[in-house]
């Protein structure tokens, strides 16, 4: 699982560098986010701008991180394309995650 991470004023920007977030790659993302949360990163902006495909496994990895953060933290989504957005809407996860067109906006929202 290829990821790029950058800490910006207390906000962890985590960019998925894979084109597919599926059953093959989801575990890697889940483990990485768990590691970041355990290290004290409570505000995470997940950059999905490179991702072109997500299945239920990929969604599950993102949900797992949100559950670990609980009410102490926040996880927001940035850069998701229309087809990815359709998955969040279908599964109603768009009610759980704040979703921004641009990851910069997602990071900014967590700084406030």
């Amino acid at each position, binding site marked *: 699982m290829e990821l790029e991470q950058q800490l910006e004023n207390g906000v962890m920007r985590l960019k998925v560098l894979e084109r*597919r977030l*599926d*059953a*093959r790659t989801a575990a890697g993302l889940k483990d990485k986010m768990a590691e970041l949360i355990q290290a004290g990163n409570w505000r995470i902006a997940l950059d999905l701008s490179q991702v072109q*495909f*997500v*299945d*239920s*496994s990929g*969604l*599950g*990895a993102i*949900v*797992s991180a*949100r*559950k670990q*953060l*609980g*009410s102490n933290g926040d996880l927001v989504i940035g850069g998701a394309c*229309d*087809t990815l957005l*359709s*998955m969040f809407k*279908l*599964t*109603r*996860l768009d*009610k*759980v995650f704040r979703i921004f067109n641009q990851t910069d906006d997602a990071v900014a929202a967590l700084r406030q």
Partner: protein
Amino acid sequence: MPQTGTITLTIDSRIDHVFLVGSAVNKICTAAALSEQEAYEAEVSVVEAVNNAIEHAYDNRAGHPVEVVVTVDNDRIVFQVCDWGRTLEWTGERPPAPIVNADDTASLPEGGRGLFIMYAFTDAIDYRRRGAKNVLTLVKHVPRAQAA
């Protein structure tokens, strides 16, 4: 004149090979005049079905075939996802839409969305045992204007 035909895609029962089927299905759907969104819906539905076959019919054991027969017809595309493993329990009932409470993230399930996605993104779904083979059939209609 609409293009018709059948192709059989076979992979080993390995999760890291599923992208091959998914990518091929997406391209076939695009060639059959489905929109980008419709092709995505078909791709993710087939991927969920293949994942299920690997995880549940074969218990994540490699070395077994998963076959996807894609038939492009005039007004629909039919995907038959076949395995020769354990037969799944199948009620044929459409799963309810997920209940989501944004204020209670602790209760959010991590999994269990695959069948709901398949039902939502396809026009018909069926699962049968045929001899030693389990066949999950997914049907995606080609909108009339696009099929013409």
